[in-house]
């Protein structure tokens, strides 16, 4: 089983990218599990096509421990197992603690043993704002971390923070940084800035995605680009990126 975590600044396109990678890998016949670690709980929307699915934290709040693994998961495109950790009520509670509770519950209910996915992908909010958000990096969770960024300064700043967190944890046997993904916003000197970031954090850009209206069009259909526009050049970009991620993650298994 390969386990990866994808981090990046909020709004940078993590969920869209991760869902398209999931769909591309599912097309290749792999068993895929995608776990959204974001209080918005919308990581997997384009895979299952629903407005919302029950989150683990909602289940814990409503039922204590009286729920099954099936209650926590929804099957999406080509059998991708979709999970949403969920979060606290806005303005209250602790989102990091929520991720800890959700991931522990997923493990406790035997998600990895029962579904036996070939690849698990954690789609994680933001720039490691607290210990809870580093949970997917821990030993036993992801083996490799990928950071998505554009050339925008805030996105680069967040990417550098994530890389710093990984560096802080290097003695603990946590996941290692496996590469940078450039999600283009067509800003000035974008490629150079992201290459400079990669160099600064001793990593490499393992793939890049063009800015394309096809992505938004697919989202309006509540689908991934892979499903909605499989013949598009954007779908091909996602397939190439999926192959690169899979290859890098396999090296670090």
């Amino acid at each position, binding site marked *: 089983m390969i386990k990866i975590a994808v981090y990046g600044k909020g709004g940078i396109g993590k969920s869209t990218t991760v869902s398209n990678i999931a769909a591309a890998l599912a097309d290749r016949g792999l068993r895929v599990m995608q776990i959204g670690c974001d209080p918005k709980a919308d990581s997997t929307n384009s895979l299952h096509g629903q407005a919302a699915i029950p989150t683990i934290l909602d289940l814990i709040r409503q039922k204590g*421990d009286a729920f099954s693994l099936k209650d926590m998961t929804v099957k999406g495109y080509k059998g991708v197992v979709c999970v949403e950790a969920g979060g606290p009520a806005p303005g209250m509670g602790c989102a*990091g*603690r929520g991720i*800890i509770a959700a991931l522990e519950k997923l493990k*406790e209910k035997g998600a990895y043993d029962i579904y036996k996915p070939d690849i698990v992908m954690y789609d994680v909010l933001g720039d490691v704002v607290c*210990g*809870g958000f580093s*949970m997917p990096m*821990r*030993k*036993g969770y992801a083996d490799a971390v990928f950071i998505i960024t554009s050339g925008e300064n805030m996105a680069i700043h967040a990417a550098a923070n994530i890389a710093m967190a990984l560096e*802080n944890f290097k*003695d*603990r*046997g*946590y996941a290692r940084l496996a590469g940078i993904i450039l999600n283009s916003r067509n800003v000035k000197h974008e490629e150079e800035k992201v290459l400079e970031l990669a160099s600064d954090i001793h990593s490499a850009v393992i793939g890049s995605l063009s800015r394309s209206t096809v992505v938004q069009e697919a989202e309006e259909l509540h689908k991934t680009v892979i499903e909605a526009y499989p013949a598009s050049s954007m779908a091909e970009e996602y397939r190439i990126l999926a192959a690169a991620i899979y290859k890098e993650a396999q090296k670090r298994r």
Partner: protein
Amino acid sequence: MLTRIGKAVDMQGAAVKIKEAVYPNPFESGLEYTPPARGTWNIVHTNMLVPESHQVYICAAGCLRGVVLTAAEMGAMDRFSSILVEEHNLMDGSMENLIIDGVGDILDRLPRRPKVMFIYPACIHRFMGCDMSAVYVQLQRRYPDIGFGECYMDPIMRKSGLTAEARTRWQLYHFLTPQEHDWKSVNIIGNNLPTSEDSELVRLIKDNGFILRDLTLCRTYEEYLEMGKSAVNISYNPQMIYGGQQMEKSLGQKNIYIPLSFDCLEIRNELYQLADFLGVQHLDYSPNMLQCERSLAKAKDVIGDTAIALDYAVTFRPFSLARLLLDHGFNVTRMYVDTIPSEDKADFEYLQQCYPNLMLYATVHAKMRVMDRHTTEPLLAIGQKAAYFTGTRHFVDIAECGGFYGFTGISHMAARMVEAFLEEKDARDYIQIKGWRCRTCR
């Protein structure tokens, strides 16, 4: 001094007739009260059983009072340390390093290096998701000559999943290493007290030429390590079931769980099961069973119809004990139990059918603090909590099963009941002492 205001508190929610009680939790969980009957062992007492071990507790200063006082009462402050958590440890992400560095400081200051360190994080570590696995890896890397035990001072693990107690019981034996097994030696595992020498369990082991090893009898770390040689682990504490299974996996020691019981046929079956397991002959236990009947009849002659109350801390099988006494004509009127153990389910159901008016009282329900709970009728209590709640001066001072097992266990219990019935004692003098019969730190 606090003075109660308002009306007397009723028993609703804190007491129920057994016929109306729901298995396994007859009382609602909520605000809890801890009665000052201190004989039951706590996490400090139990882990001190491992010779040459040292305990490290990590929490905010005020939170550590209970364990500090226990260690002090035991005269074991030289085997106890603490690491204080401060607010900045939460904010700067240094919690894991605080523990690792704190253990280092402790080791630097100890006059003698311990063989084992039991590390007790608290609920704050759980809430903030402290990576304890990484902590243990680092500690083991830095101090390879010391064994580190994963323990818990965590009330939120008390009632759900694999309990902190079950995990900790297993950790007590975590430092044993796989060895060539001696097929003529066995361990009794999971208890705080040694099983009495005259019990049929110990006799079955020793009279058939087996060496018996038991953590409660180990005085040196070398003796403790020798437990790894035994080919078989025998347990009768339900909290050790998980640990026994884990030891079978990690050490290859055969595991047998023989539940403690107060039913003569059940006891005989357990002993036969063990005999088959060890490959020894079945004994004729008819005389032992007859002796039990005689002991109980003698006790009944003395105690007569005096009301009896018993509590859960007396034994792992309080409902089995109540059934034995009621079926032998004793007037058991009250049980102080918060939950019904799974081992006791059949006995609980039997009592519901045959003695439906038997009263069950919670011990931790908040109302037990203020409810009018003393009885004016003469009453014999079995156990410290029963003595405290009823206010009687006639009680069997016992906790942690008292080392009783089998037919002799029943006879010993009957004899203690007679003694308690005939002799008055002041409960306060006895029950305020923590860790009943804890000899570990002498």
